[in-house]
């Protein structure tokens, strides 16, 4: 069996999960009653006859008097067409909001993941190779402690120490507020605080040659990304270390040594390659926590991604966004898990040949 067959099979397995996800969101939206459902589509300031008219229109549109499965189909149709309701916090369609804020969150989690892997792999491998040494013990204590900390504590600790108290790095927003008015309107929408075309301020500024803005915006990414990375790497290092220790006991590692392969190569090539496999699998489970953590970190640092937006919406009764978040985060997580599975299949030849 080839790799592409595995890919196709995996994609097909995706479909029931996606459908199930839509069921879940639909159920949530309707569990709170019709008024909760409609709240996403109705401007709260609207009253009286105008409101009643809108309610009637929506009732017809979503077939709210028909059986549940009919309602589901019309709801799904609306979702697929991009009509997710209107957000009260940004006063724009919900879908648009997601488009605006998602790139920031993706960037944040991607950078955090990159940082995590770059740091974790050497440390995990070395810690296992020099088992019970001072470094290893230090690593174990540090990761154990980080692993036991709530994400908000890690975020807050960095926020307070490096950000507010010592002022080493900026700790709020995506850019220094002072610089905000100086951003050219050619590519920045000042009313909604959105940059174009990628909606990532640092990147857009870079693309438009505005180095000062780009640099400043980039600085604002560091603390949130590092916080997330710290939370994530505790888990990764623990798993990598454990699987390295197991791998180093294996016969094939002993054979590599018996072949006369230098110890450094045995560890960094033969052992590491195998130890990374369960680590990638575990990372798949940790990614859910990564996105959840992003929500908290964005909240603490007021970093404008979908996590921040979701908490805002939750606190201000912006229903459409809360429900939409479930769907969006679900889609992101499912996609990420799929990509990770494919990566694993690529790395482990045994999987493809089943």
């Amino acid at each position, binding site marked *: 069996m080839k790799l592409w067959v595995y890919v196709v099979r995996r994609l097909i397995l995706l479909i029931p999960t996606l459908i199930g996800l839509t069921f879940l969101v639909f159920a949530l939206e309707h569990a709170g009653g019709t008024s909760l459902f409609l709240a996403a589509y109705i401007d709260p300031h609207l009253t009286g006859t105008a409101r009643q008219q809108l309610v009637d229109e929506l009732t017809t549109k979503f077939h709210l008097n028909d059986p549940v499965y009919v309602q589901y189909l019309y709801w799904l149709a609306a979702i697929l067409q991009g009509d997710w309701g209107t957000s009260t916090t940004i006063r724009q369609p919900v879908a648009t909001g997601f488009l605006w804020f998602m790139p920031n969150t993706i960037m944040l989690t991607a950078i955090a993941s990159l940082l995590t892997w770059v740091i974790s792999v050497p440390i995990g491998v070395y810690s296992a190779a020099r088992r019970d040494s001072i470094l290893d013990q230090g690593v174990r204590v540090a990761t154990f402690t980080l692993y036991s900390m*709530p994400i*908000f*504590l890690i975020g807050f600790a960095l926020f307070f120490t490096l950000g507010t108290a010592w002022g080493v790095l900026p700790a709020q927003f995506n850019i220094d507020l002072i610089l905000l008015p100086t951003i050219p309107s050619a590519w920045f929408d000042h009313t909604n605080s959105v940059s174009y075309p990628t909606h990532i301020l640092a990147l857009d500024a870079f693309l438009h040659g505005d180095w000062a803005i780009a640099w400043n915006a980039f600085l604002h990414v560091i603390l949130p990304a590092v916080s997330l990375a710290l939370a994530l790497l505790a888990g990764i290092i623990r798993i990598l270390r454990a699987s390295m220790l197991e791998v180093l006991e294996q016969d094939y590692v002993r054979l590599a040594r018996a072949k006369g392969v230098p110890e450094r190569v045995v560890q960094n090539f033969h052992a590491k390659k195998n130890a990374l496999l369960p680590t990638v699998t575990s990372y798949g489970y940790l990614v859910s926590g990564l996105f959840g953590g992003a929500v908290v970190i964005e909240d603490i640092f007021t970093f404008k991604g979908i996590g921040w937006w979701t908490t805002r919406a939750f606190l201000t009764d912006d229903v459409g966004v809360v429900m939409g978040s479930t769907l969006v985060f679900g889609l992101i997580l499912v996609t990420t898990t799929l990509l990770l599975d494919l990566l694993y299949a690529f790395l482990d030849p045994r999987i493809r040949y089943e």
Partner: protein
Amino acid sequence: MMATVTETKARYDELKLSARVFLANKTAVAGLVIFLIFVGDALIVQIAPGILGVQYPNDVIPPQITQTNPECTGMPPEPPSIAHPFGTIQYGLSGIGCLDLLQLVMKAIRIDLAISFFIVLVGAAAGTLLGVVSGYFGKWLDEVVMRVTDVFFSVPFIILALAVGYVIGRTLFNMALALIIIWWPLYARYGRSLTLTTKEATFIESARAAGSGRLKIMFRHILPNVMPPVLVQISLDVGTVLLIFSTLAFIGFLPSGALVPELGVIANIGLDFAQFGYWWTVIVPGGIITLFALAVNLMGDGLRDVIDPRRRS
């Protein structure tokens, strides 16, 4: 079936060995000690709060404080000192101050522990049972359960908790409920995989051959094999669950008026001040949470030593 004398003795010996293995792991014992301190605090606050000097165990702000201490209104948080080992916090800007953080923490531990255990025990019980049934009977039931758990796994915990909480209402009990809803799929999957491995074991075949009914097999043979790892998982999850729901409380799950002594809520209250230099208002509750999770994780390590036959020797 009556247990014979030798069987009881054998079980007692096993327990003694388990205890010895656990106690050999010094960090696990340290974790157990810390855990017991937490539990002790919770029990004392529940039964006789006066011993610790705690009044009004369910309130963040004691009812008469504004009347008895008018100067506390508008009093900013104070750093840790002899009088207030953890410092004080203030609720709401230019709101009520002088709230001793140590007392709040002692109250909060009771509530946090209760919630954690509630969530994990209910979620584990429901989930494991469903998982075992699903794994044992297989076929379409199993497929359905797998797909449903897949869907629950596809949304990050915190987001799902927010959505569910929004729908069913933002109260403390509902927060626990939302977490139970999120937690059971984990145990369903776990119980299912353990059941599948146990099902393959040959002693099940011999039980079937001997004519035991299916339900009987499930309860008499499968559950006892599934329980030990699940119990270890439960003991670990008590810490993880606390991490999650305190984080939920921190970002504001409970409406701003709901002043329950809960570590995440306290941190949330403290956050308003924290950026102005009053760091202990967030670090202390966060630290207490960390301490508990640390203790639980260390204990879990020790328990794994007991359960896993390889590490036992």
